[in-house]
């Protein structure tokens, strides 16, 4: 236990000091470069894949931030992702409020629910927390499957939207060449916000609590509320992914609540490495391209991803991003990892 956390602490610290300005600059450059991508890609198939990967990246980022700041592994983030997608579908169907309000509510409701639920879920140990996230999410999935009158059960719901949303024509959110840019901007903005937060008092406090809760409490900090805030934040990010999914896909089924989606998000975060803010997003891109490349083997995709998960967990615990950071610092002639 101590070995791995020492290693990860060293990984987190080493680049931190030098990265004061480098990170936001790099992020801005990547953001602009990404936004220009659709102009240079003719293939609609590739753009569709990129759009899906970016929505997956938002979900993976939400799972990653929970690992990074709270040290907690969620097997149930599909609940927030799918929950938000269902809120969009159900509220747009009723047509009582404007679509803009629906979109905002679809993010805020999971945040509030997560904040409340956190006070129960965070009382248990790390492993028990993982078990609970799986149980809660699966209960929600069952609820949506069984309660046909509420959300049409297994058959799912179409998402009915007005012709414009936030002043943009609705087609912006449905065509991959524009939707990719929307999702990309959301993803980059989220990573930027998380970067600021992780350097804030809340960010360092939650890391301290993760390290030794007893000690943090002894110094006089309330340890439940900061962790609940991180959990709610993570839920909100997953919910944003769900909103993007609902807008882009135009249809929601209980699959968006299924544990396999939570599992996939977790696998993306682990492959990319949750010690960095951008790792899970990288993991998502790798995940989607790997699935695409698997081609005729997609029948055995599940086993393949299981093997990748086991291999990365055992052989590369800091994930791809951790390896990149380590490699970069070696090339620069920095200290050895």
């Amino acid at each position: 236990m101590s070995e791995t956390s020492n290693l990860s602490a060293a990984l987190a610290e080493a680049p931190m000091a030098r990265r004061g300005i480098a990170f936001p600059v790099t992020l801005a450059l990547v953001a602009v470069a990404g936004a220009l991508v659709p102009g240079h890609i003719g293939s609609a198939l590739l753009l569709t894949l990129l759009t899906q990967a970016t929505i997956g990246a938002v979900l993976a980022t939400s799972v990653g931030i929970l690992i990074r700041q709270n040290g907690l592994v969620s097997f149930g983030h599909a609940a927030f992702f799918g929950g938000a997608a269902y809120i969009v579908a159900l509220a747009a169907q009723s047509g009582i409020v404007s679509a803009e309000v629906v979109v905002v509510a679809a993010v805020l409701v999971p945040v509030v629910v997560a904040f409340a639920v956190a006070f129960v879920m965070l009382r248990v140990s790390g492993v028990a927390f993982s078990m609970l996230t799986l149980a809660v999410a699966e209960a929600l999935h069952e609820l949506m499957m069984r309660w046909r009158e509420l959300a049409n059960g297994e058959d799912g719901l179409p998402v009915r939207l007005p012709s414009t949303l936030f002043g943009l024509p609705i087609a912006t959110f449905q065509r991959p060449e524009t939707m990719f840019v929307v999702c990309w901007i959301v993803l980059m903005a989220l990573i930027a916000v998380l970067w600021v937060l992780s350097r804030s008092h809340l960010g360092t406090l939650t890391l301290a609590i993760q390290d030794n809760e007893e000690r943090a409490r002894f110094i006089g900090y309330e340890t439940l509320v900061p962790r609940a805030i991180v959990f709610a934040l993570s839920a909100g990010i997953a919910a944003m992914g769900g909103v993007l999914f609902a807008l882009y896909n135009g249809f929601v089924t209980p699959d968006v609540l299924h544990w396999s989606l939570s599992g996939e998000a977790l696998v993306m975060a682990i492959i990319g490495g949750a010690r960095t803010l951008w790792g899970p997003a990288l993991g998502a891109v790798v995940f989607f391209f790997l699935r695409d490349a698997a081609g005729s083997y997609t029948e055995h995709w599940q086993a393949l991803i299981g093997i990748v998960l086991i291999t990365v967990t055992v052989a590369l615990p800091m994930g791809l991003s951790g390896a990149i950071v380590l490699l970069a610092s070696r090339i620069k002639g920095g200290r050895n990892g």
Partner: protein
Amino acid sequence: MLIQILNGLVYGGLLYILSVGLVLIFGLRRVVNFAHGALFMVGAYIGYAANMVLGFWAAVACSILVLSVLGVALDRLVFRPLQKEEPMVTVLVTFGILLVLEDVVRTIWGRDLLSFPTPVALSGTVALGDTSFPVYRLFVVAVAVLVAAGLSLWLKTSRAGLYVRASSVDPLTTGMQGVDTERLSALVVGMGSALAGLSGVVAAPLLALSPSMGSSILIESFIVVVTGGLGSFTGAFVAALVIGQLHNLGVVYLPHIASMIPLILMVAVLIWRPNGIVRT
């Protein structure tokens, strides 16, 4: 009403056999086996295959045998090498194993639902007042009672049982007292896995077999284990009985929100006692 309570007892019994396997493994290795539901599923499929050639009783024996070997392998190849890592590493690896096992079973037996015939010797019903109840379901309850009695006898009277109890309270100190926890773990994980196989094969005639059949019962056994208190044998017993009843009553009377009812109980218990019903 009596019938409903009996049905709840049947499900509670299955949940107990599965959950107590998780508790055994947690006690020795301090990790939660996310592949436990997949072991349940593999047990059911192995039973299905053996049942066609050898009959029901041999199928039960086959399942237990294969799964105990699988359990020992799991302990030697996964839990032991990862013991020095954070518990979460093992959780992720067992989750990966779950994905692989489901795929393997899907490749061998296909995606379609299979049905496991009720054994002839246990078919039929018994009269209970003015209604009747299937013999097979009573058999499931009897198996659960036998497992509970046998396990508690073993834990209370045998030397290995004493070590297991000691180890589930404090594995480190138990090791320092000279108990070979490595050997004990192989035995206990083998047993836990065999119990998952037993619950799978015994449940098979009551359920439709599919590669994903393990996930919903795994989730309920997680609720059982967390509600009962991680690592508590008595807690798992009590929680499995209560959740078995709630699950069944929920399915009958409140089908829409049935899946939420055990969770509500669990939330209530966790607010009242964060470490579960029975403190360890």
